[in-house]
């Protein structure tokens, strides 16, 4: 192939790259990119993808138990989507990992060894059918807030995957709302079920958005991701958006906020709330959440039990 352009120096490449980022021109998988951009994306997207794969499990626990034909079908389709989102995101991560010679199998191993993390909300227990509804409603609600913030991410393949994902999240949100609505309008026991779920999930929901500032935990990826226009809002802005969208809805259904001190400060235009217990984040980072090990065990068992299938498929390559 003839060299049409003069060989660019690293600085020139970096300059051209940042110019594209500034102009909003998408970066594609085979474009030149600085190492920091690639590693940030890999970390972000592989964790996002693996969180979908692991996040399918807490709801999956309720798939065979869903209380009607319609609910069984709805939650099956929803969990199927989570696996599908994992597929999309892992494909994006796998293409970024090419220069390192790593594949999906390596990502699975990283998950099993604890090197690759998954989101805090998926380490929690799902105790009742109310939890299945609450995940669809509020956990997906929180995920929609963070994911729509990245719809215009500078990395093209990620932005395109997110467009597919967010389109399906609309169904997820409604699926969750439908379960919650039926319970909210149901018997006392059913109402108690969702209040109990809300109480147990509140801390995790707040922690989900990450610490407001670096100081809270000592690390934060938010600055780098904003610099490269992968996301636009800070953790705290996203958490505030979540409150704005969901607190009125929670209250309208007659549910009580687990945080009794919570209120909206009209003057400062912010929600004032009690800091969540951040130790949860540290525990799940070590895979020491309530269900971390059980879910990893489930994923590992199925992965290993099926290893012969992948070997067999390797023999059918053509």
């Amino acid at each position, binding site marked *: *192939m003839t*060299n*049409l*352009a003069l060989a660019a120096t690293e600085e020139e490449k970096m300059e051209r790259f940042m110019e594209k980022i500034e102009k909003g021109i998408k970066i594609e998988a*085979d*474009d*030149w990119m600085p190492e920091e951009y690639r590693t940030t994306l890999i970390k972000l997207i592989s964790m996002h993808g693996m969180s979908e794969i692991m996040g399918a499990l807490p709801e999956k626990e309720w798939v065979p138990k869903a209380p009607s034909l319609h609910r069984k079908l709805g939650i099956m389709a929803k969990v*199927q989507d989570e696996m*599908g989102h994992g*597929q*999309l995101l892992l*494909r994006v991560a*796998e293409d970024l990992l090419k220069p390192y010679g*790593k*594949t*999906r*199998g*390596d990502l699975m*191993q990283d998950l099993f060894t604890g090197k690759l993390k998954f989101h805090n909300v998926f380490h929690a227990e799902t105790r009742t059918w109310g939890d299945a509804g609450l995940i669809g409603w509020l956990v997906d609600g929180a995920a929609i807030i963070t994911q729509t913030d990245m719809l215009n991410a500078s990395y093209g393949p990620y932005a*395109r*995957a997110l467009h*597919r994902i967010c389109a*399906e999240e609309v169904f997820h949100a409604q699926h969750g709302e439908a379960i919650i609505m039926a319970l909210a309008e149901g018997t006392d026991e059913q109402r108690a079920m969702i209040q109990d779920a809300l109480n147990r999930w509140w801390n995790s929901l707040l922690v989900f958005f990450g610490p407001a500032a670096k100081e809270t935990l000592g690390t934060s990826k938010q600055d780098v991701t904003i610099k490269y226009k992968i996301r636009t809002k800070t953790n705290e802005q996203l958490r505030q958006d979540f409150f704005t969208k969901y607190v009125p809805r929670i209250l309208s259904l007659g549910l009580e906020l687990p945080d009794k001190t919570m209120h909206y400060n009209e003057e400062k235009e912010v929600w004032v709330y009690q800091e969540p217990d951040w130790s949860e984040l540290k525990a799940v980072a070590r895979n020491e959440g309530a269900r971390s090990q059980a879910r990893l065990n489930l994923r590992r068992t199925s992965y290993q039990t099926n290893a012969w299938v*992948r*070997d067999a*498929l*390797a023999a*059918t*390559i*053509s």
Partner: protein
Amino acid sequence: MSEKTFYQEYEVFSKRTPSSGFQHQFSLLAPNEDMAMIMAQENFMRREPVADIWVVNRKHIRGMNEEEKLTLNRLDNKEYRTAKGYGYLKKKWRKYEQQMLDEKEIMSWGGKKK
């Protein structure tokens, strides 16, 4: 990792209706094209109508590298290639009391008796 893998990348394209063109959807991992085919629709088109599907092993796609993409740039001086360069005809035809056969008019002829 020394684990033997079957992972080959297939790009998936689909047509929404029999008359539409193929559109790129996404990519998936499969060991061969038949497996790629049986997974394509449910992975990427579960909620929309599909009239046809193509799966293409990525190794058979000849793409452009960053330098080659530079060949795609051109000057904005080629009005002579487009209807835009002939817009003055509209006024001219008016002098002859005729309407201009513009794009909208010509594209409306399909299948109709003139």
